[in-house]
């Protein structure tokens, strides 16, 4: 992945539908060979964005650049990019082989070369060679995913876009394909831009995540950074379960700060974010930099971890998650104290 030359550059891209603005002058740079996931809730504008990027729609304002070429006025069938659709959009009247060969046939590649490439791609996608002559309706959901990917790769795009292609699959298959997709990205070295509403999917696969909200990018950063240092309450909450405490002049209600922590947050105003897994039960008179006291309200077994809902003395609710071996005996009603290090918390400085 090159840090210098972006393969895709979006400048002040805007899309309006009558009175409604779906995209508000957004900017984005995607590097060659990068796996970027664009995540956001329904209506955040991610589908509108991908439709503009692949050329299915025209922007109201702004520009899209592929390397040094402006492409926002180029029709979709002339762009060197292609997309794996949410529905996969395989051609039901064609065999697996014919589907994969479709972009090559359009380019008038000789039949024997087309077939050789299709067989290569079947191998790459770990599909048996005899699938070449199978009908699409004889393939399972996961196999269809692979055929759609193979067809897109046969096109040999500069950028491969994905519009939530795993959303209709069951959990186990989705997890398996997430890993395969990441692996495929590594093996092909192509630039992948992946639209999803599933944060988990984005975190497993991507190099960077762009979080969208109401037609704007809220934060664009690697998954660890977004998870540990979200720039807003929205991102913090979108990235999974989180405890948020308003902090005014260095004091947060329901939290006892050690002198070191108080000076760390020195007079700050904003929102203090504490991830549930950063918290640990404290024993006896033990203190942490941030200490929370309350009673266990509920306890949920999550497999290797146990999640607790704790009602704090000030009435706030705290969610804590600990490894099963560190679970607190006693169950609901038990008075507990929990703590975490100031370094494990993050201060969201917003109005």
């Amino acid at each position: 992945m090159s840090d210098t030359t972006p393969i895709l550059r979006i400048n002040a891209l805007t899309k309006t539908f009558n009175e409604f603005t779906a995209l508000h002058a957004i900017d984005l740079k995607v590097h060659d060979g990068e796996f970027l996931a664009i995540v956001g809730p329904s209506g955040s504008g991610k589908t509108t964005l991908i439709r503009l990027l692949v050329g299915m729609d025209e922007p109201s304002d702004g520009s899209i650049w592929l390397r040094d070429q402006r492409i926002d006025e180029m029709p979709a069938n002339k762009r060197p990019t292609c997309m794996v659709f949410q529905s996969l959009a395989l051609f039901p009247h064609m065999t697996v082989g014919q589907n994969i060969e479709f972009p090559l046939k359009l380019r008038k590649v000789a039949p024997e070369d087309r077939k050789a490439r299709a067989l290569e791609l079947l191998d790459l996608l770990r599909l048996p060679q005899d699938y070449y002559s199978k009908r699409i309706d004889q393939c399972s959901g996961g196999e269809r995913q692979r055929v759609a990917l193979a067809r897109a790769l046969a096109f040999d795009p500069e950028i491969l876009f994905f519009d939530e292609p795993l959303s209709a699959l069951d959990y186990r298959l989705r997890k398996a394909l997430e890993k395969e997709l990441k692996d495929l990205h590594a093996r092909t070295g192509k630039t992948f831009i992946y639209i999803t509403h599933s944060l988990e999917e984005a975190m497993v696969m991507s190099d960077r995540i762009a979080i969208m909200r109401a037609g704007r990018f809220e934060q664009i950063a690697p998954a660890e950074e977004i998870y540990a240092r979200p720039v807003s309450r929205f991102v913090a909450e979108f990235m999974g379960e989180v405890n948020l405490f308003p902090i005014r002049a260095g004091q947060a209600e329901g939290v006892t700060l050690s002198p070191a922590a108080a000076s760390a947050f020195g007079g700050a105003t904003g929102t203090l974010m504490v991830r549930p897994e950063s918290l640990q039960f404290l024993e006896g008179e033990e203190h942490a930099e941030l200490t929370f006291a309350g009673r266990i309200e509920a306890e949920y077994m999550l497999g290797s971890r146990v999640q607790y809902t704790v009602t704090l003395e000030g009435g706030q609710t705290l969610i804590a998650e600990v490894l099963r071996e560190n679970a607190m005996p006693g169950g609901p009603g038990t008075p507990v104290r929990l703590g975490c290090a100031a370094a494990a918390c993050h201060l969201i400085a917003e109005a």
Partner: protein
Amino acid sequence: MQRRDRQLGLLYAAPLTLFLVLSFLAPILLVAGFSTMPAKVFDLAHMPDFSAYGEFLRQGYWKSVAWSLGMALVATLILFVICWPLAYGMAKVFKRFTLVLTIGVVMTLFVSENIRLFGWVLTLMKGGLIEGYMRHWFGTGFDGLLYNVPSIVFGLVYVYLPFMLFPLAQGIAMVPDDARQAAYDLGATRWQILREIELPLAAPGILVGSLLCFVLSAGAIAESKLLGGQAVIVIADEVETAFTYGQNWPLGAALAMVLIAIVGGLAIWGIGRADLDRMIGRKG
């Protein structure tokens, strides 16, 4: 319980099934029986006589069959070409206007075919709407537009348009939008999308519409009589003449059987060859 439901279902369906079988088979069997009678003799206990079929070849009735089938083929092709964009609009573009268009097209069926064709006669004849206005405005007229093969084909196209339009619209509605978009995204031109995606996926609608129009056009008589005059004699005209003026029922029946055999055979062959489920990829 399931077995009882099945038996009840069969029982309820039996009267209608019997009616349909009889109303379909009985006339064909009757006509087939008449076609094997000796000419000018009405004898139910006769020995089968195929002389009427010999007359079909000897007297050149095959020309009428050829005209009927040829004009039916041309009309079907024209119907397909003019109905495709309209059906596409109805299935994918027009939205609310589709209902208006549907009502408009269906309403023409509320008026008898003969009356509608007479309307065209008054429009196209010498001294009719078109020629009359031409003479009035430009001081010169012409012989009218009737009594030729194109006017018969025009009549067939006009009368059977709904039979192509609606199946075609159904067929086009079955083409998934994202398949079309995916083809475009993969570099296909508008023409390539039509050829590679839309036509194959709309094939069931195309097949049903084409068969309906071809079969109905091949057996049509009013268009050739009213718009075509004596320009060409179609096979249905020959059948009518044999049964009425000619009083030669075996010949009329034999001609009808030939038409039924050709058109029915073509229809069965077409449907048999076309695996509709496979065409649209729905066979599991």
